[in-house]
């Protein structure tokens, strides 16, 4: 049963449609990550759900109740913000207690619940501080505590890890899913970090220019991106998008990429003048000439986590990213060598329309 339903939502500013006829649903206790580049309308969408701005068209239904015309205070949502949005003139304690104050809950219970949630978020030692005395990580934990304390059924998280340092972001990325599961709540989570989206989302909605271009599980989005734009947004280094043509007379079993003919396993998907999407990890680099391998020059090598990222240049100038486990290029004698051979593993390849970028 869907818990949050967004129906045909539209919002324009100065004739510029920021949200365009948007519809999606979120199941009870599901975490939906809304992912997209900046300016895609993510923040506007969240503010529409929160009730800070009203849509021009469409409805928002939470738990069977149409809340489109309700004021924010009647929506019973929790929300945490990118910039924390703590009340600077109140202590962390009062910040966290704020949702309970509006419900006129007895002080003893407020006390007990604030300490419970503060402990859960490991900020119980700083609740007497003003926000300005807190670190960014503590600020965001305070904001999260505030959004959780009243046990809302729906929580909106607006890129909450954007302004915290890398270490805290890493910790929270691990901690948040457990926390949200423990509080038994439905979550809409906005981010522009694809790793965060993949780590936290039960499903991911990819928002581009006010439209959802794909809504699916992280795995599906990574493995079957709906178009080349989405394919590029997920993955670091980004997916290679290479124009291809079919080799005449091969019935589509061979394609020409960067002036090199490559066999296409399965023989499906490609058509003349489309774009091949190939993840860098599916490009193997070696120094021995192999059948079907493409002669390349290695322009640059950078380590990335436990892998090595190489920027290759084909004979016709096409740039290709390759990524291989660290040490894969073993043999110190090979270091500094520029000429190499790239083998494209097309078993995980994607083909996209050249014009619209749609998946073929």
């Amino acid at each position, binding site marked *: 049963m869907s818990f949050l339903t967004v129906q045909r939502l539209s919002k324009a500013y100065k004739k510029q449609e920021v949200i365009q006829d948007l*519809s999606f649903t979120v199941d009870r206790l599901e975490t939906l990550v809304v992912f997209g580049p900046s300016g895609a309308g993510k923040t506007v969408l969240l503010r529409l759900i929160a009730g800070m701005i*009203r849509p021009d*068209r469409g409805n928002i239904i939470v738990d069977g109740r149409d809340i489109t015309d309700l004021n924010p205070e009647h929506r019973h949502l929790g929300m945490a913000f990118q910039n924390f949005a703590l009340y600077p003139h109140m202590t962390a304690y009062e910040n966290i207690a704020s949702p309970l104050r509006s419900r006129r809950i007895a002080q003893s219970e407020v006390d007990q619940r604030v300490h419970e949630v503060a402990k859960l978020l490991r900020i119980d030692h700083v609740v007497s501080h003003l926000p300005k005395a807190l670190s960014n990580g503590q600020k965001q934990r305070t904001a999260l505590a505030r959004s959780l304390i009243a046990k809302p059924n729906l929580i909106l998280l607006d890129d909450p890890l954007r302004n915290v340092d890398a270490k805290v972001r890493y910790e929270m990325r691990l901690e948040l899913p457990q926390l949200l599961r423990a509080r038994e709540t439905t979550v809409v989570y906005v981010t522009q970090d694809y790793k965060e989206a993949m780590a936290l989302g039960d499903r991911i909605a990819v928002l581009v220019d006010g439209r959802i271009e794909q809504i699916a599980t992280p795995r599906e989005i990574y493995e079957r991106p709906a178009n080349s734009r989405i394919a590029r947004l997920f993955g670091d280094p980004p997916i290679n998008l290479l124009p291809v043509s079919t080799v005449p007379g091969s019935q589509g079993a061979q394609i020409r990429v960067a002036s090199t003919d490559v066999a296409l396993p399965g023989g499906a998907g490609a058509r003349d003048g489309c774009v091949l999407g190939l993840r860098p990890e599916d490009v193997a680099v070696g120094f021995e000439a192999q059948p079907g391998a493409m002669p390349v020059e290695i322009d640059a090598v950078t380590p990335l986590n436990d892998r090595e990222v190489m920027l290759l240049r084909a004979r016709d100038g096409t740039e290709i990213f390759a990524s291989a486990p660290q040490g894969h290029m073993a043999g110190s004698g090979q270091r500094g060598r520029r000429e190499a051979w790239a083998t494209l593993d097309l078993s995980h390849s994607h083909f996209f329309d050249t014009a619209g970028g749609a998946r073929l």
Partner: protein
Amino acid sequence: MSAANSSATSTAPAPLRSRGAGALPYILSLPALLVCVGILIPFLTAVFYSLERYNLAFPQARKFIWFGNYVKLAYSSEFWRTVEVSLLYTVFTVGFELLIGLGIALLLWRRSFVTNLLNVLLILPLMVAPAIASLMWKLMTNANFGVLSYIVTVLGFPNFRWATSPSSALFTVVLVDIWVYTPFIAILLLAGLRGLPRQPFEAAELDGVPQTFVFFRILLPMLLPYVLTATLFRMLDSIQQFDIIYAMTQGGPGDTLMVFQIQSYLQAFTFTNIGRSSAILMVLWAITYVLSKYFMSTWTRLRERAHGLA
């Protein structure tokens, strides 16, 4: 339940909703709106007065005469004298205040104990009511005991009679205006200067760029929005100056200091000629209206910059 299903439904747009903000902003600004209306009513009345032959001494003769008052003004040397004096007053006050104010701002640019102290001292004249300031200078230029009268006598000008002589009256009130309002320009320009980025000046210094070049090609252009705002602000006040002149000489001696508002005050309260007085004020209003349009556009730009809007 997964994919967006907008394509499944019709492609016609969903029905338009009414905007939610509703009446709240209007309720909040209603009192301010009422004040607006409360001012617009007398304003429109004044426009009407200016089109009437309306002298309190001859109530029976009151009559709507279209632009009769304005036509009479156009042929009146007294009115043109008013225009002349007002313009002179504005040009002299704003011109000198701008030059001196810019000089002071540059002088106090670099922060130090002395410049901070001077910065505070500069505020003081600005806090004195212009009418009171005028009275202070009236005492200082008193022929019997005024310290300034004494000083000019010592300097060899025993006949310099400040505001009581037609030849020096304008000079005296301009001096008072400069004393009161130069700090205004200095303080605004100083804020502008201190808000400027440092890099261009440091780069120019490193490159050994001549100071005159730095001043005219780097500093002045960057400071221009502040200079414009301060200047227009002062012009708007200066062209309608009343307090200083009224407190000093009430427009005299003779007609030496009959600026717009003094002249219309005289027309209304001495000659009870409301129609003519209103017509003079309408001319002044037209001038200030044009100036205030310019002012508001430069002012808005500064404001957006200060508040990081765009």
